[in-house]
């Protein structure tokens, strides 16, 4: 083959390859979806504990959320107190949370507000389980998006036994249990 012809053929194949790449990109992009981020569906979560251990970040980007608008403000909080707690006070030995990330604040008798300290929470879900079993389920897990690095495939999603993780639009990145919740970002 003459060098000329060879060059022409190469140019042609190169053009074809470029078309192929373009085609792959176009067909992959045909569903114009918004930017997606990872979030977990609290209705599906079974508080297995993997959110604390399987995130690529340590501590995990998953934290406990508390929907105040559906909380019973109970004195005997299933999420705050150990089931075998001797007394209903703030003693460390009575608290369920391993890092003491929940603050109990007296509001008016007999109501108490429970506040999660995001910096302390490790996302273990122990309180969530307690609140789910004994309370209103106002405590639940969510991926915190100021922490999450939005992995291409979330490492927790891969190992979640309850299939709770999914991609959600970045414009609406939380699945809160109550839409009456006031939000700040």
């Amino acid at each position, binding site marked *: 083959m003459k060098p000329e012809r060879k060059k022409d053929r190469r140019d042609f194949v190169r053009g074809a390859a470029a078309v192929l790449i373009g085609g*792959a990109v176009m067909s992959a992009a045909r569903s114009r979806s918004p930017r997606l981020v990872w979030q977990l569906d609290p209705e599906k979560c079974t508080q297995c504990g993997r959110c604390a251990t399987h995130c690529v970040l340590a501590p995990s980007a998953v934290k406990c959320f508390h929907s105040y608008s559906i909380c019973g403000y109970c004195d005997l909080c299933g999420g705050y107190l150990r089931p075998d707690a001797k007394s209903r006070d703030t003693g460390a030995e009575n608290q369920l949370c391993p890092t003491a990330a929940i603050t109990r604040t007296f509001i008016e008798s007999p109501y108490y507000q429970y506040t999660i300290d995001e910096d302390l929470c490790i996302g273990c879900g122990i309180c969530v389980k307690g609140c789910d079993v004994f309370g209103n389920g106002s405590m639940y897990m969510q991926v915190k998006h100021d922490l999450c690095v939005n992995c291409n495939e979330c490492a927790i999603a891969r190992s979640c036994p309850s299939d709770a993780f999914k991609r959600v639009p970045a414009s609406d990145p939380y699945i*809160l249990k109550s839409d009456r919740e006031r939000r700040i970002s």
Partner: protein
Amino acid sequence: MKKYVVPPLGGFSPTGFRLKAVRHALVCVFLLVGSSQAEFRFPMPEFVTGYTHPAVHTPAPSNAMVGWDIVVLVSTLTLAAIFVLKRRKRREIFLLTLFSMIYFGFWRNGCVCSVGSVQNIAAGICDSSYGVPFTVLVFFALPLVFALLFGRVFCAAVCPLGAIQEAVAVKPVKVPPAVEKVLSVFPYIYLGLAILSVAMGAGFIICQYDPFVGVFRMGASFSMLIFGGIMLVLGIFVARPYCRFLCPYGVLLNWASKLSLHHATITPTDCIQCTLCEDSCPYNAINEPTPAEAPESRGKGASRLGILILLVPVMVVFGVGVGSLLKEPLARMHPTVRLAERMAGEDLGRYSETNIESEAFRASDTPNEELYAEAVQLKAGFGRGGKWLGAFIGLVIGCKLIAVSILRKRTDYEPDRGTCFSCGRCYKYCPVKE
């Protein structure tokens, strides 16, 4: 630290306190025992003190860096092309490599990377409901376009995975070319497996088994840290082990680079066959000139080529056979199949304990039959996919055999356009100056 809010004094009496407490407790008990249909066990209290609940902290996902990532990608690719083709200085290429390692790797946590983007593209093609983010499209396409124009300049100085391996490759030894050829089939297998996994909805295995992302994030599961560590230690002596023997995106870059318009050359002008550069490439990517006289008669070569071409369909059929045998192990890539097997095993008393997955499944109240039916369907899918995978690997091996047996006439020392990473090591070995 305990904070107590002191209740306002007005409007409260000790009896009032107690009454309310009793009522609350009563309501609670009533709700617990009486109506299981109630949405919440405990009613939301009506506060008399005017308490309003705090807001929930819902920070938005950060979007700030995404635009920068694309800007940095375009500029590093352009710089890499200039350094490789025009300035021809190993030192500059290496500095750019270090920058990419720090920016895309440590600073941006190694995500999203072009290597993994193959899976997003595959997911976008297979699943019409999955939209590939714009950044990922750019990260997939741009390095390939650059490879079509300038060779694998992305590998030279932009890819964070390549960069970290380049940084540790201090004492590279030569891998025997035959071993290199055999091992270079693995990226094709990996690529095929990754696409199969995405197509079947079994997850992104390239991300899962990325050995270096744990290093970039300074944390990963124990086994992945070990894998990353082994790769880095191995990488001291065998330069770029991941790139050469695993990277699935490298397969695409290899193809694109074979067609490249311009490509790195060892010599700035004309090769004088001094052989000085022969051993300079740690990647076996320098092709030597073909011997002047043909080592064998034309007829012999032609008949061998004929046999090899006939062998390709045989390899493909063989691949299909092997692929269909691998149906069961392949299907186990899918979590649903694993769960179904676990559930069946537990029901048959094969395990003494339940595991987290099976417990979660039982809690979901889905009937076992549904799970089994889904698993059977998935297995059938993996059966078909396995055959395609086998055929693909058979074809690749067949084509590689043909490529080895064809002697292209070459008079100069040249980098192999497919496998050369354009790292620039060979430049300084060439005594010819401009």
